[in-house]
């Protein structure tokens, strides 16, 4: 199921601009893009947001217009904290072929690099000054944690809920 509700890339870009420049205004200090990199039957949109705590979100999405719909063929959302911590949601290229479902090798390949995945770690500049940081947390050297397919909206909510709690003061009550 497509996560993009708009029927064209232009309309999606329009909504994205609304999000980045208007609705994120209370927590953003600078916004860049979206900028389009067109190629044949696809368009890549890239953009960036600097939040008021100096954390940064960079996004890149490759989109294809199908009949009355827009399909994301790749994406990357990288969120960097001033501390050096980052997370990076990624979907790159086409899904791997499923292979032999009874083969542990094929299964391991799917687990090693799922189609949609998440990297969590610290950037090289930070790991160089942080003694004792496990090597698997350095840049993108760690595991690819499988995720569902995410969107810019989802990543923004992850950031808002996890990193702007003090500003927005969420209260979670039990069901």
């Amino acid at each position: 199921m497509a996560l993009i509700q708009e029927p064209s890339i232009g309309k999606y870009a329009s909504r994205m601009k609304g999000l980045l420049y208007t609705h994120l205004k209370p927590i953003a200090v600078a916004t860049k893009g979206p900028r389009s990199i067109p190629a044949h039957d696809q368009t890549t949109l890239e953009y960036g947001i600097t939040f008021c705590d100096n954390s940064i979100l960079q996004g890149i999405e490759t989109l294809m217009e199908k009949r009355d719909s827009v399909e994301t063929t790749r994406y990357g959302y990288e969120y960097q904290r001033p501390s050096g911590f980052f997370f990076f949601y990624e979907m790159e290229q086409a899904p791997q072929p499923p292979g032999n479902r009874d083969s542990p090798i094929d299964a391991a390949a799917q687990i090693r690099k799922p189609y949609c995945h998440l990297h969590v770690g610290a950037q090289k500049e930070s790991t160089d000054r942080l003694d004792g940081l496990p090597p698997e947390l350095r840049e993108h050297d760690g595991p690819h944690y499988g995720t569902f397919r995410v969107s810019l909206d989802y990543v923004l909510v992850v950031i808002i809920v996890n990193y702007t709690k003090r500003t927005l003061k969420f209260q979670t009550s039990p069901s």
Partner: protein
Amino acid sequence: MNSDTRLGASSTAMPGDGIRISGSNGNSASIGVYNADRREASSMRYVAVADLLPMEATGYAVSARQIHLATSASTASENETIPAIITREELARELRTLEQKYDMPSEAFYTLWQAGQAPAHGIDALRWAALWEAWRERYLI
């Protein structure tokens, strides 16, 4: 006004369907990402993002309806943006920068990247691939 007091948002765990977040104005948006059956963030829409944010001008959280009216393609046919398009010069310059950074020609990177063996990772790799695809197809000439 302090943003803490003007939002007044709350979230409540909903059995089987993740979290429901309500804005101070009573509008709500379902976050369906925890729905185990669908495994997709299909119901995660922009309204959910906006509902979490205070709005500077009015001092209230933005309602789902407001955002929908303001940004939805379904309500305004003229509401279509042509984003800034990268120029041929920018394309060449940024490809050169990436080639120097990773000490590798773009074509070689792209071949490795398609095989999942590229030295570049993260945003750099995705940008490089997109830039090379645009350059290779001479789209901007």
